[in-house]
């Protein structure tokens, strides 16, 4: 009975392991800690914003603005570090306040005007990128020495792989995200909103606060992701991170979270990120695909993973139900 809740997570995990095994059997090189380290570092920004997206989707919403917010964060940081002598840490604080407020504002509009999140955040997406354009259309390098200091922080793993600062930030965000979702009132409220809005309201969930909190959290994490992205590229660019929202949504959903809300896990999103990273790594390692085959293969693999996950779910749901009934019957006769 209990495991039915964790079924999608389990299915995703099995799919990931299967996928990795297949990759390794084709390219033994992929077993190295270097590849593992790259997987974490390269997807750090995506992972961080996907944690925020998980909360949004768990609550039954969606946030299309994250990609633009990441770009805005980068542009804002690069411009402010270029034009003023503010310390990057102070700039980080400012930008996080801004993006959090931006998210909160969207949450407010969604709740108080009763508008669909898809549309509100779509407007937010236009707005954030529009503001980035206004700040600068050129890509601006960040040359502050503090950035190099941060970029130099990493733990060397056996085998030459690196666990970089940004990878560590991502792992920390995931850990905190899991705790927030599973072990706090806010987390339960998020699930409650996704389960059934009216019921949640009637059961006394502070819907307004929670909705605003969710989008503020997503804004905050998108800002943090933007900071990580700027560390990753040492630059700000208004065209950066186009379409990241779709990648994040895909990671969340591949991770077993229901887009209609209420069911899913932050840990699943981590698996979703890893699966997507795996697909990309595989394609690069292969290195023979033309541009168009790359797209097709990504689509096919996406389909493969989702179909496999569906199949696993379907099979184990069936056996779980049979088991449940068996145990219920046993309970009844034994009682």
């Amino acid at each position: 009975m209990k495991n039915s809740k964790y079924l999608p997570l389990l299915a995703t995990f099995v799919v990931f392991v299967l996928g990795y095994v297949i990759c390794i059997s084709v390219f033994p090189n992929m077993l190295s800690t270097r590849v593992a380290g790259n997987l974490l570092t390269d997807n750090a920004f995506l992972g961080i914003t996907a944690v925020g997206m998980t909360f949004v989707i768990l609550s039954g919403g969606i946030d299309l603005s994250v990609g633009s917010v990441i770009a805005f964060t980068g542009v804002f940081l690069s411009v402010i570090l270029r034009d003023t002598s503010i310390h990057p840490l102070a700039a980080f604080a400012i930008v996080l306040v801004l993006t959090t407020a931006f998210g909160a504002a969207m949450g407010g509009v969604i709740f108080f005007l009763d508008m669909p999140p898809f549309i509100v955040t779509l407007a937010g997406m236009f707005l954030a990128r529009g503001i980035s354009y206004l700040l600068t259309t050129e890509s601006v390098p960040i040359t502050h020495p503090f950035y190099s200091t941060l970029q130099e922080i990493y733990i060397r793993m056996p085998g030459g792989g690196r666990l970089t600062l940004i990878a560590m930030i991502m792992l920390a965000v995931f850990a905190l995200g899991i705790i927030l979702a599973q072990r706090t009132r806010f987390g339960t409220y998020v699930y409650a909103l996704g389960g059934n809005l009216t019921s949640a309201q009637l059961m006394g969930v502070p819907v307004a606060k929670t909705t605003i909190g969710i989008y503020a959290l997503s804004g905050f994490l998108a800002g943090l992701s933007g900071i990580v992205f700027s560390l990753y590229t040492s630059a700000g660019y208004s065209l950066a991170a186009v379409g990241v929202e779709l990648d994040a949504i895909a990671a969340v959903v591949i991770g077993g979270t229901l887009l209609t809300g209420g069911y899913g896990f932050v840990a699943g999103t981590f698996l979703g990120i890893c699966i997507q990273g795996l697909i990309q790594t595989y394609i690069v390692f292969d290195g023979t695909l033309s541009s168009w085959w790359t797209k097709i293969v990504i689509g096919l693999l996406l389909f493969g993973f989702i179909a496999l996950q569906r199949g696993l779910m379907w099979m184990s749901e069936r056996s779980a139900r049979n088991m449940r009934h068996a145990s219920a019957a046993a309970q009844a006769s034994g009682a």
Partner: protein
Amino acid sequence: MAVPTIIRERTPQLIVLAVILALNAIISPGFFSIEIQNDRLYGSLIDVLNRGAPVTLLAIGMTLVIATKGIDLSVGAVMAIVGAVAASLITSGYSLPATLAGALFVGLACGIWNGALVALLDIQPIIATLILMVAGRGIAQLITEGVILTFNDKPELIFVGSGSFLSLPMPVIIWVVVAILAILVVRRSALGLLIEAIGVNRRASTLSGVNSRVILLAVYAVSGLCAATAGVIAAADIKGADANNAGLWLEMDAILAVVIGGTSLLGGRFSLVGSLMGAMIIQSLNTGILMAGFPPEFNLIIKAAIILIILIVQSPASQAAMANFRANRQTVAIKTESREHAAR
């Protein structure tokens, strides 16, 4: 009496459209002037109708999909695929009817693929259609081999994109015809009701004997067909199939058009007429921005701001406030009526 109700229900959209058109006319004085050039009506207003064709067509299919609580992210990619198919068929010597039939068939197949994932495999629509959104452009490029497949010497296909009939540009004729057809089929049959019911409560609909799977499949198929039509028009318009850019991000515009038109993303009640107006609102906005001559960096901000204003004005919250206001004036009448009802 059908037309007046349709218009009455869509008053907010009509007002918004009128305001935006008026703004356009203020910014560029010749906006409303229409003249005949080369036997064809010519003017900014015609441009709005003409350029709006792809989004309008996409919005028709998208409305039906959204009414079932779904979403179709793949329409832009399907446009690219179909454009590529049409271009490669016509350049390899097929006749126009064969080309069009082939193109529409491919669009239909794409739609059925999406529908099968959603209806049969129960994959969430956004992810189901994301697959084709990602892979679709690849398929289109595979067909064109990465180049812009031009057909400058095929006037029959070009006619679909830039020809004119009865002085109206072909794309306008096509979308108007498709729209009328769609509205007739959906509203004169019971299809509209069944679609709405599936969107509101799929389980209850299935239990009441609605063939939900088939209808879902059909709705995505129609969306594929609409995207195919839009794809042919887009390719014919530039006399070539641009696998990379045809229909790029148009799915977002189409969704926006549907929402501006008053159909909820949560499924259920839908309005095709509203979506058409939504598409026209978006296109007038685009054309207006182009005519205004602002630096392009401002495009997005202006668009976002205006969309926000439109949405806030017609958000359920403000609508409810309006309705309450109106209701309060009618309260007395209804109260007596309901008392009579109770007395019976």
